[in-house]
């Protein structure tokens, strides 16, 4: 309900438009930036992409038809932008450059990992980030962000049955990776 009022305010071009948009950023900025990071595993890119998401949101708000809730809509923008980036020449070039430089795979993750005190959780976190994108994305959307199979299939534009199959395969891979990194069977 509060969200509907905010969108109406932004669309009406009212003087409080910026305040309303600020509030939307307060509500979703944190979770969107975290999701994007879990896809791209790189903070500067996560920052840029989060900005892109909210700028797009601002420019497209007038087209929001209210058929889904605003959270799903923001997620859909974020996932599309992130996947476009991961498919882009810039990202592929960065990957190659990183490999040539011989930088550690995890980079900042290695530092961040210290914040997880529980070893099992730390291993699980690392295992998830190491999954191939095709499997990581379904795990992140369905388990991390707790969207249903149907919503996950809509975000990724794939069939529900495919989501289910990928989840099944992803869990298997995750279990293997988790055990390989020292997690309990």
């Amino acid at each position: 309900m509060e969200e509907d009022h905010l969108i109406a305010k932004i669309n009406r071009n009212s003087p409080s438009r910026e305040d309303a948009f600020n509030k939307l950023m307060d509500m979703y900025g944190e979770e969107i930036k975290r999701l994007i990071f879990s896809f791209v595993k790189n903070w500067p890119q996560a920052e840029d992409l989060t900005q892109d998401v909210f700028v797009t949101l601002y420019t497209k708000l007038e087209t929001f038809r209210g058929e889904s809730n605003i959270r799903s809509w923001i997620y859909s923008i974020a996932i599309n932008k992130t996947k476009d980036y991961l498919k882009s020449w810039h990202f592929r070039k960065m990957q190659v450059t990183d490999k040539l430089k011989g930088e550690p795979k995890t980079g900042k993750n290695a530092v961040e990992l210290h914040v997880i005190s529980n070893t099992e959780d730390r291993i699980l976190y690392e295992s998830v980030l190491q999954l191939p994108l095709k499997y990581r994305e379904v795990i992140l959307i369905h388990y991390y962000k707790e969207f249903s199979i149907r919503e996950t299939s809509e975000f990724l534009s794939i069939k529900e049955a495919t989501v289910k199959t990928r989840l099944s395969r992803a869990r298997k891979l995750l279990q293997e990776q988790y055990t390989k990194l020292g997690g309990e069977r």
Partner: protein
Amino acid sequence: MMEEQLKKLSTTMDQGISKGKVFTDKDKQQILTRIRKLSVPEVRSKKSHALLPKFLTAALFTGIIFSTYIYFDKEPVQHTQPNVVKKPEEPPVSIPNVSGEGSSAVYTSNVDENKLTISLRITNNSDSTITNRLKYRITFLNSDLVKATGTESFMIEPPNDSSFESGGTKSISKEFNLTKRVARDSLENAIKVEAISDNKTHHSFVIDTVKYEAYEDIGIVPHQEEVEKEEEKKEEPVPIAISEGEAKQILNRNLADIKQTLLESQKKNNWHSDNPATYEVAGPDFEPFVTDNFSNNVLKTFLPEYFCECDSGMLPRIHQEVRFNVNAITEDMIEISGIEPASDMSNIGSQWRFKLAKEDDVWKLDHWEESILQGANLRLTKEEAGKLLSTQTNTVTFQKEIQVSGAKVYVFQVKDADHEFMAAINSSDTSFVYNYE
């Protein structure tokens, strides 16, 4: 183990990513700066408006009113400041903010007629009176309901009395005469309503309160002659060439043949995740078991994905005792549905629908369709849930029925030669429930 850990993945990931805030004021400022930059042309145009009267005033003082007026009115505006011409101001866009809480539907069925009455209760949650004319589109999301009403969607256009005040509620009702009876399940989450104005949907919801009043449900026993009348109305039964049991056997045999063909094709062509099957090479091997329709619409996409080392989730594994139903049989067509219950590997069940067609005296698979049970409500009985857990080597004993997150869950004790454990099954979608008292 993994399923349990994945359930708290949200916490694990958030802690792993960062314990502190990652979206900061700096992020917000950068976003706002980018947005303000987007709006620059608009700001410039406003400044031009402000400058024009100043120039005109200056011209008045210098005594060259007429010629300068023309100069400023035409030349600068046309060549250097195209945005100076003031457009008529558009009225502010008012977006109707409505909700449909309290909307309901009633299904009534007796010997003579079947009716569906939809009662909408629309509330204006806007701060002001809604002046836009609101229309309501009803969409039926269930194929049986579509058949019975004869339409997929229907637009209700109430007269515009322009008095939908803030906080007010309007009641709108629409009755549909159905051409046939529909099952209770067909009405669940099957009526979608959209509030529309100016070709935009402003709010949509699905009616979840449906009252079902079929005569056998409400205790009205029809007179014998009415029953006979209804019997007469029924279509003549089509001669059935095979029994339901035989139909199920045909499907099972067909699925087994397809599985065997997949295994042989893999062996022959060394298909694996890095060498995915191609329809052109593998497809012809399936011709004895599937129709052209299945080949073109299913196999073409299925084959390249199948050998991904995740085959366990791709072929249907239909439970043979629970909800395995033959829906239609004719001499040359069989329609069957069944469920693939949730498992330890994939805690999400599926519903499958199959169509087999007879070609040159051979039954072939013509179509299959899988839909996820998440969000469904199968209303499994405890006997059915028990059957889902049973194997040839274990003993399943019902313990209790509990409610978890609004769903009915059956708890069983399962014993086999080596283990004894408790298992809980969600009656709505067959999923295993782990967190219960």
